[in-house]
């Protein structure tokens, strides 16, 4: 009975933590609502444990009791980091100015009742928590704490919102089917792959209708899972690029270049990611910064964490090949969704107008969209001569001043959007 009693107490104590967090001061009501959603999930878990407690002394059901307790522990593992996220969303380190415009973008892209939480995270990678059971209307967007007040990295939110869109549109189902067929065809068409697969998994050579065999068809499951994850990441890169244009390329490079040797299996290797981005940029007639691709490693090493490296190399090769067959489809899909959702793309003349205001150290009015401000911001950031004729702005503070100016411009955009919303 200890297991079930401990489990009940653990969840109860997390619920007490939620209660104490509710006493915090939140800058926007979404944080409070997110806490209430987490509380409901934990209450549901507690109810399941309480039901389970009623038969926990019956030996025949010991395995069921353990499974429920294990799942309740998993719930704590999954939701406690979200509580930390919600708490950090109150931190003054965050750029609260961006919340309104990014929320409106998310609502337009996803659905009108989408709720956005932005927080600074202690992980040097932007992240999103999406598709959270019990919190389906929420998108939790985390930026690395040293950069959480850096508006120049907001274009990366386009990638993260892409994950929420992927989930909303159930694209996983579509790509699981398509990727599975692609990998099966690849093996059917290349005898050397089939021989390698049979050798690696010690499958007899007399298989005829091999894909109908459960054991045989299961051998490619890691490749399928990884390829679908890679397809999602690629789609999200395309979403960020389509929504924010060149500014996405700059923010992507700022945070990721030159890439790391460690290869995460859920991502294409960095060279392929960059190649895909540049291919989309070309198709969408965006300006590609000179030497952009050279900022990145030409390849990434293979995953070191899988013990059976021959098998994982083989699976990764299948996944990479499957992804390459879907890149154009993902690109077109991102383009089509942005158009269907009527998301305005960065406008060169508006960007140029804002850029000229930045030269004068003042924010612009009527910026229309976040993407316009961020593209103008990146142009100014990359201009070595920016404010060189203003001696009262020493060169060592120029970038900080520029970031503040961009945030001020976003604040004005927020007010303009609110005013439009009221009309």
């Amino acid at each position, binding site marked *: 009975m200890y297991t079930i009693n401990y489990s009940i107490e653990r969840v109860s104590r997390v619920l007490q933590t939620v209660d104490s967090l509710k006493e915090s001061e939140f800058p926007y009501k979404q944080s409070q609502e997110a806490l209430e959603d987490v509380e409901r999930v934990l209450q549901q878990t507690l109810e*399941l444990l309480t*039901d*389970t407690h*009623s*038969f926990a002394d019956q030996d*025949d*059901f010991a*395995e*069921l009791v353990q*499974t*429920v307790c*294990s*799942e309740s522990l*998993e*719930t704590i593992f*999954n939701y406690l*980091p979200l509580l930390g996220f919600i708490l950090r969303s109150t931190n003054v380190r965050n750029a609260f100015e961006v919340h309104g415009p990014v929320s409106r973008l998310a609502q337009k892209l996803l659905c009108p009742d989408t709720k956005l939480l932005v927080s600074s995270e202690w992980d040097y990678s932007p*992240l*999103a*928590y999406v*598709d*959270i*059971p019990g919190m389906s209307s929420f998108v939790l967007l985390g930026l690395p704490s040293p950069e959480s007040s850096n508006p120049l990295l907001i274009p990366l939110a386009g990638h*993260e919102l892409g*994950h929420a869109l992927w989930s*909303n*549109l*159930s*694209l996983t*189902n*579509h790509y*699981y*089917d398509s990727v*599975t067929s692609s990998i099966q065809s690849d093996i059917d068409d290349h005898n050397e792959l089939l021989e390698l697969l049979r050798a690696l998994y010690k499958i007899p050579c007399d298989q005829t*209708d091999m*894909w*109908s*065999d*459960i054991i045989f*068809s*299961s*051998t*490619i*499951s*890691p490749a*399928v*899972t*990884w390829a679908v*994850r890679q397809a*999602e990441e690629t789609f*999200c890169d395309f979403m960020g690029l389509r929504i924010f244009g060149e500014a996405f390329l700059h923010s992507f490079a700022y945070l990721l270049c030159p890439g790391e040797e460690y290869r*995460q*299996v*859920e991502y294409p290797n960095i060279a392929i990611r960059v190649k895909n981005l540049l291919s989309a940029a070309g198709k969408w007639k965006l300006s590609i910064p000179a030497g952009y691709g050279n900022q990145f490693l030409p390849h990434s090493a293979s*995953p070191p*964490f899988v013990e059976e490296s021959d098998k994982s190399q083989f699976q990764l090769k299948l996944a990479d090949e499957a992804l390459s067959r879907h890149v154009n489809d993902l690109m077109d*899909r991102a383009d*089509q*969704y942005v158009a*269907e959702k009527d998301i305005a793309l960065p406008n060169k003349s508006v960007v140029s107008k804002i850029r000229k205001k930045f030269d004068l150290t003042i924010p612009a009015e009527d910026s229309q969209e976040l993407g316009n401000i961020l593209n103008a911001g990146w142009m100014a950031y990359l201009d070595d001569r920016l404010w060189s004729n203003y001696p009262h702005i020493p060169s060592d503070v120029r970038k900080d001043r520029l970031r503040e100016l961009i945030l001020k411009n976003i604040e004005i955009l927020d007010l303009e959007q609110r005013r439009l919303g009221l009309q």
Partner: protein
Amino acid sequence: MVDTLLATESRLRATDNSLPFLAAQAAVELKMFADGKRTDRPAGVRLSHLIRNSVDLQEQTTPRSLMDPSTVSVMSQALVDSQWSSQKPKTVDELAKLVIKLANEMKSPCHTTERNGGLKPMMDFCIALARYSSAYRKAVLSPRRKHPYRK
């Protein structure tokens, strides 16, 4: 295109983050149902719906699996482990037939009570599904991505 994709029904997916908890909930509901302590089984009905949607019956004399390879693997292991059926599926088609039966019986468990010696085999299937799906997701993703909702 958006509307078409939105209309796609949910299917059972071994990598679905909420599957292990749902399966555990369904198992507890069955136990409470067997003990006469509850009559509704929302998690069981939802799980039955997901399983049912993993097989295509339209215009087919034999059911066609819509399960991806990882779901095929997890489902077949859960079925064999739980001994819900004496038949051990060897092919995806055999699995699809069993899955249809399973979904129907999970939706209306009272019909299975006498034939299968109580609800225990169905409960055991739910437990096995919870365990295998939880283990699969953790095994196949890299260490940085262990949080299920993090992207």
